[in-house]
């Protein structure tokens, strides 16, 4: 229902409108999921965070990437069942939705930035040294971009993470096993052997 409204509000077929429409859809769905939260909803929320990855792979715009990271980080925070933060999350998401709907892009971005700050604040209470929930979200989404064909360096650059983190995450997944290649591994090995004889 919301999506149809958005079609009317953001007219035109330009690139920006496509991206906005998808982000609005994600925020609407997130708000809907967060209204009455159940365990299955967390999985839904995580899946939702992948919906802008197609756009992020193609257009590589910051907004598609940021919303994907935000929604994933949100699911991790909610998983920890910290009810104190929910009112502020609701407030921020609704405000972000309103600004985007009104084409006030800068205010929308500010609201998402504040939401990420709120998430970071909750996260800091857990006192983990190495990876924050936002770092984890960035690595996960970096993995998704890699899955969509981007190189490891490119995906790290877009997410603002180091290749070290992404490489160690991707190595532990089956992402590179998904596609059978024509190149013969024994031929490559034979060539390599020749370099050291």
């Amino acid at each position: 229902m919301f999506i149809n409204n958005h079609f009317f509000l953001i007219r035109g077929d330009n690139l920006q409108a496509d991206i906005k429409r998808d982000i609005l859809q994600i925020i609407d769905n997130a708000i809907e999921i967060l209204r009455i939260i159940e365990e299955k909803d967390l999985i839904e929320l995580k899946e939702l965070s992948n919906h802008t990855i197609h756009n992020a792979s193609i257009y590589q715009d910051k907004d598609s990437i940021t919303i994907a990271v935000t929604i994933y980080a949100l699911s991790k925070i909610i998983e920890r069942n910290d009810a104190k933060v929910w009112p502020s999350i609701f407030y921020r998401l609704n405000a972000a939705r309103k600004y985007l709907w009104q084409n006030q892009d800068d205010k929308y971005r500010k609201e998402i930035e504040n939401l990420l700050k709120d998430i970071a604040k909750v996260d800091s209470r857990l006192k983990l040294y190495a990876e924050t929930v936002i770092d984890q979200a960035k690595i996960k989404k970096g993995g998704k971009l890699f899955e969509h064909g981007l190189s490891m360096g490119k995906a790290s650059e877009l997410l603002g993470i180091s290749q070290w983190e992404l490489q160690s995450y991707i190595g532990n997944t089956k992402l590179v096993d998904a596609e059978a290649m024509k190149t013969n591994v024994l031929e490559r090995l034979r060539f390599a052997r020749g370099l050291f004889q």
Partner: protein
Amino acid sequence: MRALVFDAGPIINFATNNLLWFLEEIKKRFNGDFYIPKSVKEELINKPLRTRRFKFEAMQIAEIFVKGVLKAYEEDTHDEALKLLDAANKIFFVKKQPLRLVHFGEIEALVIAGKLNADALVIDERTTRLILEEPEALVRIMERRLHKKVKLNNDNLRFFRKLVPKVNMIRSFELVTIGYELGMFNRFLSAGEKKLVPDAEKQLLLALLWGVKLNGCAVTEQELTKVVQHEISSRKRKVL
């Protein structure tokens, strides 16, 4: 002078696998120089130094720089790399939108390999390798993930290939396998260790190859199994 050019990935892989000593050993055997692009040096030392998790690995990489195992390529390749990057990013399209798939550092490594007429480029990264070796596979990957038609612009691909000198590519996976063949890991196969670990030779090879795969080298499980079978049967033949 013989040369191998390294992308960041294989060095990160060796550092996280505690195999930087092996890089030194294999370099002696190669009898040439090991280069990395200047931009890759930032990724290998400065960036991990700013983290808590990879700080020690960065220190160990700094050490092999000081020892001269790795050298940063000092000539300015910026403009050439940018030109090549631009060409690489106009090969694949969704609707009319070009897909920017690769990073400056990966392309810079290719440029340097060409300039040095290097014996090979060592790159663990899948996308850059596929653009050169098997662009159709990349199209398949992207179409399946994006659920959209991906167009390969053959004119731009030809132009890109013309700019890229003929460079052979290998991975940390092949380097480690060669090291195993050359006995560089035999210190893990002492009589005591053989007693402690059943089928120690095969276990060592599996440990090495899974190590590089799990630390980000783009090698499939199928490839890994094939190489293990090949290596173990070659060893058996030698013993007989």
